[in-house]
């Protein structure tokens, strides 16, 4: 064909990708606005599972059928059985994944075995090795179909160039939608929706080709059945080992493939979706495989003998002149390949970033990494983006190195066998409490060494990685170590040989080492938690009352979750503990919640390490161990009740103590109020009186002195007036007799005006930085709000002790209110004084300020009148105030 059709093809691809962008973008927007109605459909979940059907299914299944008859069905029968049997295993996996906030299969395994980072790194590396060929396979299929469709000469140069472009394009798409979320959460609504759409496209495309073949080329089903029996597929003989072995292998793969884990467990919105998927996904698989044999036999009939059966889906419509259908078919293949690569890249990059990059980064950014303030989310996202590029690059390199020659099916099965090695550790982990970390490491190591030695390395062909000598005579000349005939058992199919030996020796090693080793406390806790998830999924007895400082935890949490999210979380927990303010007590329950939230962003092992860094190592207490040791539910129940009671007592006592302290302070202050007012008034009056006497009594004063003394009298009089104004203002506000003038305005303008007023006429060099904010409209008393802003800015000007004082103003908005945070780079206010500063005359440093210490008290009164609030915001490094402004002023109850 010609260049024109190539251009048309590229154009169609681009339009399709832009369409997917649109879908993903719309889904993200909807999810952000809390709607996401479509995402709540079990159908979308089911369709997203179709990332199982890659280009290997779309193109490869027909090729597989043409070569090996009905054997291709095993690849879909296995997963169907797993979904049918959701009650046995998947249900549990999804529950654990959700309740422990698991981010990937590596996180799942590491989390189960005592949040072990070694295990996480191991699983990650193995997953990357196992998935790389599979990504290469997708690149190959897109590239080849491109070449076939456009009729371009299949010169290796153009092919590799196309592959590079495809890889780069996919990297961009994945980065845009896989790492868009600033909160680095594990749900990717946009991607899931795009994948559901792609699932429909590939199903529709394959059905269209199938219908065309059955009714357009052949004469309907009976003709097809005849053709089957007259084709070479009729000669297919079932190979018992391969039939059963491949059903097992594909069943294992759907549980262990990183991308399947991603869509099935991590992206799961609602456990009930699994129930629908338990029949709908097998139905999808059945329909996908329905027309495979018909297409294969018709292809074998019609197309010349040398034609590549892996491309029948594309070449059949082309050969019969149906360009439109061919285009649809191409898009189907394109969808299959891209959805797999995108999800696999997201899953792998999450693992690489959480388990390899972040731990390294945290340990290198000096020993105390977790508590430095500043935002770490940027680092998380950046490391994910880089990981995505690396994963795709690896796929591309594998494609270049392997030459893209191997039949699609065999690469897919090599990958399946690799990830199936996770199965014993995964299943053992959720069903057997005796499984230990050392056992898991042993099992995985044995499994992967065997996989690499027996299947992966030989797959490159003799003398590429393994010498032909070794293949024939075994390692070190031991014939029982021949890669494809271990222990002298010859005649087995190489794949089944590998599956059999690797999985059984993997399981054996895992089992024996688990029996012989003794688990660490955390492993036992997590083991009990995973295995008995349905009995007590509400409680993970992990932390027991350390002496962490809440503020330090806050600093850390803000970096990972984002300031706003962390504050909301802390405030909610504080409220649950019955405390006022924003800092909860760092008790076991809170630390556990925090750790789980953090693990959603950085993985369980890292989250655990970070929290223990602050809480101080001793993470598991004797009580926790007792809870594990006590097998019966009653004892668990009893001890937890006791714990709750003593917690409650302690909390009540603490609250009483606090109330008492506060009362004492308040009464002292009330007592002091008069004497404070007296002091504040008398001080300026002293100067006024002294200088006016001097002016009156001294005749020999110079003109300059006279002027200066009158100046002092004037200034002190102004100070007195201001003080009286403040007192009256406060009195009016407190008695609720104030009249408010509600106006609508843009927040930015109110703020700019306040900044200008506050900074004018002062020589102090306070630098004010205001975050860019959208156009936020507020309706309130603008003068009063401005007064508050000015006061807070002037406070920073007066009290910020940094060498180059800086005040940053951060504006965040939600549905009901706007939060304006004023954060300076000074020393901050000690915890015990954070509440008192809003009391009248409660200055930190009485002599430094020119005012009377009424400013913040007035601000608080004003904000409460305006239906908002002002509060001290701990854990920001410097002194920080948060002003909460409702979008529309609600009249405070009078």
């Amino acid at each position, binding site marked *: 064909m010609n260049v024109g059709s190539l251009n048309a093809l590229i154009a169609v691809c681009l339009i399709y990708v832009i369409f997917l962008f649109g879908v993903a973008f719309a889904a993200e927007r909807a999810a952000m606005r809390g709607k996401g109605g479509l995402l709540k459909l079990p159908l979308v979940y089911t369709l997203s599972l179709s990332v199982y059907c890659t280009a290997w299914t779309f193109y490869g299944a027909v090729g597989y059928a043409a070569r090996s008859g009905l054997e291709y069905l095993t690849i879909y029968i296995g997963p169907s*059985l797993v979904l049918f049997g959701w009650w*046995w295993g998947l249900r549990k996996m999804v529950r654990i994944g959700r309740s422990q906030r698991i981010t990937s299969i590596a996180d799942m395994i590491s989390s189960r075995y005592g949040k072990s980072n070694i295990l996480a790194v191991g699983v990650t590396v193995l997953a990357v090795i196992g998935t790389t060929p599979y990504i290469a396979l997708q690149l190959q299929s897109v590239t080849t179909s491109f070449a076939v469709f456009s009729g371009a000469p299949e010169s290796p140069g153009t092919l590799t160039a196309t592959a590079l472009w495809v890889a780069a394009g996919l990297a961009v798409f994945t980065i845009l939608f896989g790492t868009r979320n600033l909160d680095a959460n594990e749900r990717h609504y946009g991607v899931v929706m795009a994948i559901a759409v792609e699932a429909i496209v590939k199903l529709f495309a394959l059905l269209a080709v199938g219908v065309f073949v059955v009714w357009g080329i052949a004469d309907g089903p009976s003709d097809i059945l005849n053709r*089957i029996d007259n084709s070479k597929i009729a000669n297919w003989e079932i190979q*018992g080992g391969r039939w*059963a072995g491949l059903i097992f292998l594909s069943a294992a793969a759907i549980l262990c493939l990183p991308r399947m884990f991603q869509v099935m467990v991590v992206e799961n919105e609602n456990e009930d979706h699994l*129930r629908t998927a338990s029949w709908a996904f*097998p139905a999808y698989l059945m329909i996908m495989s329905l027309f495979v*044999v018909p297409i294969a036999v018709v292809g074998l009939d019609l197309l010349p003998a040398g034609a590549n059966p892996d491309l029948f889906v594309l070449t059949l419509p082309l050969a019969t002149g149906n360009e439109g259908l061919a285009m649809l078919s191409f898009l189907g293949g394109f969808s299959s390949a891209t959805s797999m690569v995108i999800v696999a890249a997201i899953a792998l990059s999450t693992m690489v970033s959480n388990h390899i990059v972040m731990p390294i980064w945290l340990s290198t950014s000096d020993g105390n990494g977790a508590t430095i303030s500043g935002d770490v989310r940027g680092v998380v996202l950046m490391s994910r983006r880089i990981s995505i590029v690396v994963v795709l690059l690896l796929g591309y390199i594998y494609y270049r190195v392997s030459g893209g020659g191997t039949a699609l099916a065999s690469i897919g099965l090599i990958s399946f066998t690799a990830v199936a090695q996770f199965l014993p550790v995964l299943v053992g982990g959720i069903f057997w409490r005796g499984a230990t970390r050392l056992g898991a490491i042993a099992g995985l190591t044995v499994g992967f060494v065997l996989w690499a030695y027996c299947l992966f390395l030989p797959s490159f062909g003799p003398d590429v990685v393994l010498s032909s000598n070794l293949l024939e005579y075994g390692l070190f000349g031991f014939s029982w170590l021949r890669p494809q005939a271990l222990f002298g058992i010859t005649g087995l199919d190489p794949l089944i040989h590998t599956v059999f030996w690797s999985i059984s020796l993997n399981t054996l090693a895992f089992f024996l080492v688990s029996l012989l080793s003794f688990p660490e406390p955390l492993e036992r806790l997590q083991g009990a938690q995973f295995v008995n998830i349905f009995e007590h999924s509400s409680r993970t007895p992990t932390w027991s009352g350390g002496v962490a400082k809440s503020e330090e935890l806050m600093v850390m949490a803000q970096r990972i979750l984002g300031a706003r999210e962390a504050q909301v979380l802390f405030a909610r927990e504080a409220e649950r503990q019955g405390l006022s303010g924003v800092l909860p007590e760092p008790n076991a329950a809170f630390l556990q919640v925090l750790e789980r939230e953090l693990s959603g962003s950085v993985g369980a092992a890292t989250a655990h390490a970070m929290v223990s860094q602050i809480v101080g190592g001793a993470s598991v207490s004797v009580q926790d161990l007792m809870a594990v040791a006590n097998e019966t539910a009653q004892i668990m129940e009893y001890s937890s009740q006791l714990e709750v009671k003593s917690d409650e007592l302690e909390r009540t006592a603490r609250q009483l103590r606090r109330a008492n302290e506060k009362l004492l302070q308040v009464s002292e202050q009330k007592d002091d109020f008069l004497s404070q007012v007296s002091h504040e008034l008398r001080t300026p009056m002293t100067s006024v009186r002294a200088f006016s006497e001097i002016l009156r009594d001294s005749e020999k004063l110079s003109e300059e002195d006279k002027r200066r003394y009158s100046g002092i009298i004037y200034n002190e009089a102004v100070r007195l007036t201001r003080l009286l104004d403040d007192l009256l203002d406060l009195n009016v506000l407190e008695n609720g007799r104030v009249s408010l003038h509600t106006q609508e305005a843009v927040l930015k303008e109110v703020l700019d005006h306040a900044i200008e007023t506050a900074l004018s006429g002062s020589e102090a060099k306070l630098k004010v930085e205001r975050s860019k904010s959208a156009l936020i409209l507020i309706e309130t008393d603008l003068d009063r709000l401005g007064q508050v802003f000015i006061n807070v800015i002037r406070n920073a000007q007066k009290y910020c002790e940094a060498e180059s004082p800086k005040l940053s103003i951060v504006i965040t908005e939600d549905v009901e209110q706007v939060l304006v945070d004023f954060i300076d780079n000074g020393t901050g206010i000690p915890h015990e004084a954070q509440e008192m500063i809003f009391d009248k005359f409660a200055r930190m440093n009485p002599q430094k300020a020119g005012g009377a210490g009424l400013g913040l008290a007035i601000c608080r009164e004003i904000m409460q009148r305006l239906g908002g609030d002002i509060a001290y915001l701990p854990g920001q490094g410097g002194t920080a105030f948060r002003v909460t402004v409702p979008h529309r002023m609600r009249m405070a109850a009078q």
Partner: protein
Amino acid sequence: MRPPAQTVFLERQTYRRRRLIDLIKILPLIGLVLWLVPLLWPTEGAEQVSSANATIYIFAIWFVLIVAKALSVNAFNAGGSQKDDELKGDERGQS
């Protein structure tokens, strides 16, 4: 006093529900066994099963399993309001 009829009715409901769970649990095992049946087929001679018939057999199992599964899951969801001790509170259907 609770009318005895209602008690009987409730027990029956619970009983049905448990049997439904049994069905849901056993279906994949039935599927596995049926799908392994081709291993028993003679591979040589006149009695060899044709590929066309094998295809029909495999897809028929698939279809029946999907329908059975869909029906049982729907029945399970529909009866979800019943609290069932066997479910240990974790698998109550949407009601």
